[in-house]
């Protein structure tokens, strides 16, 4: 008996310690989950950074030469994508952006893909046609005034604005924008922005 009770006593302390640690970890995880504000930034949108910035007062043009600004999309979550024909990763991701617009575009959300080629419409239009971007409007900023104003110097860059025109996050580099995680991210912005 004596040796047995000694064994129990000697185990009590380490077992208690492990249990206490497990409880602490569980509490921390729970606390973090409860406190987590952002969406899951995994997979294709791993590189997405959530950072609120004031809205940009910038304007670009559509295919017919009309001036367009973020104000024209007030009330919608807007995903602005900067692309160029010389940018291979942009060309790669454009079809997925086109599909994203088909999936989510509407009252609450829209994609605005702005081409910054110096050649403007003559360069961009045939390219867009060749990529068969049926759901995306043609937006042009051949002088890249917009990109300069909002701090874009890596192509592609994608910036998301809330319904009031405030930047809520951005990503440099390409992604499959119609992937489940990217769609979930956009839905998260739509649901949160009122």
């Amino acid at each position, binding site marked *: 008996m004596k040796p047995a009770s000694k064994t129990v006593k000697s185990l009590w302390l380490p077992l208690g310690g492990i249990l206490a640690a497990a409880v602490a970890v569980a509490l921390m995880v729970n606390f973090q989950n409860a406190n987590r504000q952002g969406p899951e930034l995994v997979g294709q949108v791993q590189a997405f950074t959530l950072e609120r910035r004031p809205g940009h007062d910038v304007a670009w043009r559509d295919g017919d030469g009309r001036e367009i600004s973020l104000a024209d999309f007030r009330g919608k979550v807007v995903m602005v994508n900067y692309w160029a024909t*010389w940018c291979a990763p942009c060309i790669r991701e454009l079809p997925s952006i086109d599909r994203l617009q088909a999936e989510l575009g509407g009252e609450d959300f829209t994609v605005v893909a702005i081409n910054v080629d*110096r050649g403007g419409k003559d360069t961009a239009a*045939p390219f867009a046609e060749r990529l068969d971007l049926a759901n995306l409007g043609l937006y042009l900023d051949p002088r890249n005034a917009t*990109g*300069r104003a909002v701090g874009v110097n*890596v*192509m592609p860059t994608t910036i998301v604005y809330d319904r009031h025109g405030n930047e809520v996050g951005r990503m440099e580099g390409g992604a499959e924008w119609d992937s489940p995680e990217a769609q979930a991210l956009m839905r998260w912005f739509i649901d949160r922005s009122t």
Partner: protein
Amino acid sequence: MTVAHKSHISQTGMVSFANKCRALAAWAGRIAPAVALLVGLATEAAAEPAATEWVDYGQGRARIVSATENVAGELVLGVHYQMAPGWEIYWRSPGEAGFPTTIVWDGSDNLGPANMDWPLPHRFEIFDLETYGYKEEVVLPIRARALDDGAGVAIRAEVNFLTCEEVCIPHSLPMALDLPVSASGTPQLSQHAALINKYRALVPPRDAQRGLVVERADVVTGEAGSHLQVVAYSDRPMTAPDVFVEGPQAFLFTKPDVSLRDGGSRAVLRVPVAITAIAGKETPALPGSALTLTLLDGERAVEQIVTAGIGQADTASFAPFVVILALALLGGLILNVMPCVLPVLSIKLLGVVSHGGGDSGAVRRSFVATSAGIVAAFLALAAILVALRAGGAAIGWGVQFQQPLFIVAMTVIVTLFAANLFGFFELRLPAWLAGAGGAPREGRHSLGGAFGNGVLATILATPCSAPFLGTAVGFALSRGAVEIFAIFVALGIGMAAPFLLVAAVPRLATMLPKPGRWMIVVRRLLGLALVATAVWLVSVLAFQISPASAYILAALMLVLLAVLGSRHVWPAALRPAVPFVVVLATVLSFVAPQIGDADRSADVADDSYWQPFDPAAIPELIADGKVVFVDVTAEWCLTCKVNKELVLNRGPVAALLRGPDVVAMRADWTNPDPQIAQYLASFNRYGIPFNAIYGTLAPNGLALPELLKDDIVLDGLNRASRRNLVAEGS
């Protein structure tokens, strides 16, 4: 240059400091010249002589270097890039995405026009898009000169470029370099001269003689769209040729599908062509457009400007291998009824008749042996072709008939067979020859003889280049040794098919009538067919060497026949001389080709409108608005004779060829001629008949099929000359 390229706003902490410094320098340079001077002084202190300071742009660094420390007029500069692993900058034509380095020299002093040269780029794939550019390190050499030779040069450059990896980042880097005037009038070489020269040597020279040349670039339109077919020639075997094509903006040319021919001395590069213009907008026609082709093979590269023509698909290289093998089988089968093989086949059939009452096992063995002989002979031919090709010889199907001694040997063999069939003599030795005709008469069936039958049939088949055979053999010759052997074995099996059929079902042989008097009649008739074959062979020699040598050969063959035919009536004392006379006549016949050489027969009057083949004259004739028709023929080419009789020398085609608008050229390949062989090879043909039509629309020639028809030739003449067809054809 877009403003985007000028944006320096930092996005990553790593590059932000350098960017800020650069932004500051740029700002200072614009706003306050005094500050700029100070910054400039600091820059020069840090930089090596004859080079600007390295500018770190985050994904690499760049500077401008000069080959000289001072100037005396000429300037040799270079933009020197050292890139972080994975990052690319672009060639002058970036491919499917990207843009090249451009430099704005505004603000420079005493600097004249500057021209950038482009070292040979590499082909990279980024996100499934094909791009051409450089990685790791490169110098883009620049040729410039001072406006005033007697003064120094102040270089103020804004270097604009794009670098891409997972993302693309445009940059615009300001650089400054001052080069003083050389006091001695001779510039002092800098430590960068060797580096710049290293990259200058990588710039493909234009129209240079580096043993590498683009022979033609034709737009070929097929079911799967258009591609550009580039034929390149190299004086030493190519290993991995490639071509960069630059043309009108509406077209995008990507990585070619390459096939080597002639042991690597010729390459056919099929370059995919995509149209990038807006639908509905007029697309310029590619044929007739000037293309800049950068052809390379390993270290060697040349740049050539070529006008795109219209061409025909290099079908031989695109048909699947199994299809070609099937064609070879069929072609081999057809050979059995060709005039040059028919007598041999008939001899074999005669053998069958003699087997009439024989046992099926013997029939089977005999026919298998003949099949083996055919296949073995084709294997031997393949081996010879592979060996010749390895030796770099121009080879084609039927070229062996260009060798007079071969023709003489064939004539003697055929004549002896004829004598044998006439019953003039019976050969006992050597068995493999005897079996070819004599043995059945004795009731002995030598397997060696049956095998010899097959060999002889194959050798006689070689000049009968049926269209089927030409395609298969042309394909084989364009490929490696394995394909040559495979296709020749298929030809052999095809040709042996009837024999194999009898071997499989010997009853077919025993169903024939019993031997009787009719057999002797058939043998005599077949003997006559062989005599006819001999006469044809002699006539080939008449064209090839001279009529005199042909007469001598014919006379010797008559002696041979006469001696063999009359030996039974010779006095007994003289009979031992018979073999001696036969041998003597045979030996003498091989001397016949040496006689009367050079005395070529004149053209027949009907052919007078044919001019001698002169490919160099063709472009000028086209420029004069003429259409040029080229016919490559040879005396030994039976299909060529058929073409002449049925199409070229009669009816509407002959009328047109005689007319003022068409220049008819004839190349005679009866004797070996490397120029003609090379000409044929440039069309991926290795045998004849060959015909091509040249015109304003087909400056590189439109190859016609081997077997001609009136409408094929007339259509070709129209297509080569009518202007509106180019646009439709593209």
